[in-house]
């Protein structure tokens, strides 16, 4: 990135809402899609080297701060790191993968992300996703690729009161509007907090 550049525009300019839980559009973050043979040492090194995190198992999410490795499918990972490290991370990963068939693509700008905080977040998400949002259905630290109403989304719980959602940038407004409605005051379900 050139120094003359402004910071990247967020889809909703950092929109936020407080209801049953608090919802905030997360700051831009580097997201790098890595497709390859997840069992190969080169792919593992590319993912773990750039994040300093262990490889997650199927459906797993490993994270520290704003770095993460998300298991997306049997041949795909999503690497998260600070936005301004995207280019160096891409270069570093390409170096690890030299000669091995793999695909590394920068998806940082293709996605929007929301932080959810509060005790009722399992209830709020269960209004929008058909995935099982119970503690056993989606334990803390497991990534779920599902949908929110009519649009694809991935999400994971960082704790019982904190979750992150990743969706396509073009539908950020739709997802934010959905979350606002699902978290409207007076709509608590109290299904998961028994």
């Amino acid at each position, binding site marked *: 990135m050139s120094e003359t550049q402004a910071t990247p525009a967020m889809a909703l300019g950092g929109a936020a809402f407080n209801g049953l839980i608090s919802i905030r559009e997360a700051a831009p973050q580097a997201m790098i*899609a890595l497709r390859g043979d997840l069992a190969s040492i080169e792919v593992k090194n590319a993912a773990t080297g750039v994040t300093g995190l262990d490889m997650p198992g199927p459906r797993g999410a490993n994270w520290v701060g704003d770095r993460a490795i998300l298991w997306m499918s049997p041949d795909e990972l999503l690497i998260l790191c600070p936005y301004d490290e995207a280019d160096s991370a891409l270069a570093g990963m390409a170096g690890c993968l030299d000669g091995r068939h793999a695909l590394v693509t920068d998806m940082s700008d293709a*996605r929007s992300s929301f932080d959810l905080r509060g005790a009722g977040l399992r209830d709020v998400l269960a209004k929008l996703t058909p995935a099982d949002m119970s503690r056993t259905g989606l334990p803390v630290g497991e990534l779920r690729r599902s949908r929110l109403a009519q649009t694809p989304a991935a999400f994971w719980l960082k704790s019982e009161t904190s979750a992150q959602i990743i969706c396509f940038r073009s539908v950020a407004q739709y997802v934010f509007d959905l979350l606002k409605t699902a978290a409207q005051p007076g709509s608590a379900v109290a299904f998961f907090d028994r």
Partner: protein
Amino acid sequence: MSTRLATGGRLIDRTTPRHFTFNGKRLTGYAGDTLASALLANDQMLVGRSFKYHRPRGIVASGAEEPNALVGLGRGDRFEPNQRATTTEVFDGLEATSQNHWPSLNFDIGAINARFASFLPAGFYYKTFTWPRSFWKHLYEPIIRKSAGLGRAPDPEARDPDSYEHFHAHVDVLIIGGGIAGMETAKRIGETGVRVLLIEQDVDWGGRAPVDGGEIGDQPPEDYIGGLLASLNAMDNVSLRTRCMGAGVYDHGYALAYERLTDHTPAAKGPRHRLWRIRAAQIITATGALERPLAFAGNDLPGVMLASALRDYVVNWGVSPGDRTVIVTNNDDAYRSALILRRAGLAVPAIVDARVLPQDSPLMAEARALGIRILQGHAIDHVIGQKRVTGVALCAHAGAGGAVIDEIACDAVAMSGGWSPVVHLWSHCGGKLCWDETRAMFRPDHNRPPTGDKGQAFVTTTGAANGMFTLQEVLDDAVATAAQITKTPPMTSAAPQAQAQEEAPLAPVWMMPQGAGVHHRAKAWLDFQNDVKVSDVQLAAREGFESVEHAKRYTTLGMATDQGKLSNINGLAILSGALGADIPDVGTTTFRPPYTPISMGAIAGPGRGDTFQPIRRTPIHDWLAANGAEWEPVGQWRRPYCLKRPGETTHDAVTREVTNTRKNVGLLDASTLGKLIVKGPDAGRFLDMLYTNMMSTLKPGRCRYGLMCNENGFLMDDGVVARLDADTYLCHTTSGGADHIHAHMEDWLQCEWWDWQVYVANVTEQYGQIAVVGPNARKLLEAVGGLDVSRETLPFMGWVEGALGGIPVRIFRISFSGELSFEIPVKAGYARHLWDHLLSACRDFGVMPYGTEALHVMRAEKGFIMIGDETDGTVIPQDLGMDWAISKKKTDYLGKRAQARPDMARPDRWKLVGLETCDGAVLPDGAYAVAEGRNANGQRKVFGRVTSTYYSPTLGRGIAMGLVQNGPDRLGEVIHFAKSDGVTTIEARIVDPVFYDKDGEKQNV
């Protein structure tokens, strides 16, 4: 008269009055009342008029099965028709209006239909109003619709201001019904620790048991229910919901439940209804049973109620539907109503029992001990009264009626024809029924349950829903069901002992008296809501409607909003009698969800208003919205058709945008363009199979236009492919095609060519894309600065990478307009920066954004095809004269073999040509080229059609493209296109499809 009793009413709070109106009349009830109980407490016995004959109708039931007491609730944006008074909780400010009456409930002109009832039998409309044919639509139907019908539809302009939501729950066991059976089962299953969801449609737990009495383990049922509820509440793994009705059961353990959150507290915050979308490993229906009416003459008069409902009103709400109630029954259970009425101090002049028992059953003995007159072997000959019951005339049940033995003055009649298990939810997903001869009812056949993916039963049923009616049977069944589900031996924890009086068996009575004559049958109602009588069903049978499904549709039995909850069994028993067949051989009609109607709002959930559907917005969307964008949908994207300036028409704006782009420079937000990265050692080979032309020979740094066909040879997408490096390609797709083509690629890679080393990524949204188009395009980019875009460095169909105005970009030199044109992808987070930069870089060049219509006009002027305009799924590249884009060298590509089939290869296919109207007008879109004569179907012969048509500001005339038989061989010929009237035609000349800059000089500068 019906009135509030001085004492009693276990569900009401007499210290909390509730004020409401019925047809504008101010009335008062208590907290805990239903609208039905509050109306009865105010002596409002008449609540509506019937569907067909406008007969006066009163409240019949006390719950979800109510057919008559349907009212309109609320007003304006919150008006809802056909709401059941029996399940509507009274709140302050409730406004209810009765339905289907004119001019008023008490004086209804339509009631004259009843005088002519003998002229309005089943199938009357089908037989009578068939001639002359046109009269049906214009005369008969409007009049019939005015006279028939229930509630009126809300104002089409009304907008529901409430919100609704969905909730997805995954549980081990879903139990539907919170009576004794459901609660006992839930407790026992819950104790094993599995996840249980127990739902109850009513406000209160316990079902009928508190009214029907008896004892469970030395406790009255109410106390036992309290204990059950406390233990269920104490279990973390058990969720309980009231006001939550099991609406439907579907494949794979999917169930819908309908929770009414704020219907009773309309001022409360939050959603009004919540639709529960439940996945359950096991579903248990504990849905209870419904009492059946008896079919006797005048059984629809206000004041005739179900015996169980009558005692519900007394016990639950302290309301007496009448001072003197005659009980008519074929079973012992109705005696409970007599006992309860007497103990409440009300008169029961007689119990009319169709049976003749050899000795008194315990309940009968108890009634007799209270001094109640019991008339065995008797029947009601007819009910006396106009708008409400004033008495009954009795006869022998064994006779044909008419020989009245006695008349008894009364103001209420409590009828009971026995009970039918609520088998709806068991049946929704294929559970079968068996006929229980002893109890004269259909109950679930456990040998034929609804089955899941492994053939396992995923629905079971317990309690009264399973045909178990006594307290002890219900408790034993709950224990057995829990043991079966938890796979523990049933005897580990025995059921509590219940005390309830033993009952003598019922005698099936489908018509009263047994041999009722024609006059009686024509006044004996089966379906109260749809006005179907015994005589109608018998007529249907006589006319050959032998299948129960046919008879249902012919007579409309069970087709009203109550779906025949009270009428189905009686109706099919009458039908089987008329056919001389056994009841189980006639069978039931199909039970379909929902169990009772649910709101459209709940079904839509979040799918309304801003969240009706996902709208995809580009990074430049906000700028476009602020600058006059007239939006059009492109897939789920919104793109500007044009950007209107104040005072401009749409046509003006498009003309201005085209002209400016051709003269100066235009900017297009092309962010929606599909962008797929295809990478790997086999990427070239893969693309050679997907595109009709050769992609593997493309050099890095260069672009090539390509066509993509499906296996059937039809053109499905097109776009420019850029080679990024030795094994990486960027494939551009149409805006609407990105996701589809991505899936298409993954399909072939995963299913057919799984061993090819190729990865695909959809990076459409990673980049905003801006097209800079027009003679001044290069100058504009040079003004922004940072990249050499000269003809030498960046020739046509080349691309470069670098920073433009400090923003990292890639620039493709490609053109969809015929002008000098650059397409610039930029990271989405910086797209708006670049857009602003380009707009403000230099005012001298005449930079001006344009929309999709200008894009379309310019591509049509150049004769470029558009997927979806020139193609419609039946068009092959050869039809479009695009043989040049089909490789002759390749041994194969998707569609190649199909394109060799005789129909694809025949020489007289409709092929692409340009069209110019002789007078310069614009051809109608989709117009057909017509020939003389008609085809075998009597249709006008056609030999071509318009695929794209525009006014060209550049040429100052209408231009079009079309597919015409042998078109390219007919250049210069004038043909005729039909206007939308199908008669008048427009002349147009077949021309070359390239109207503008045929040599392509402008894009090559």
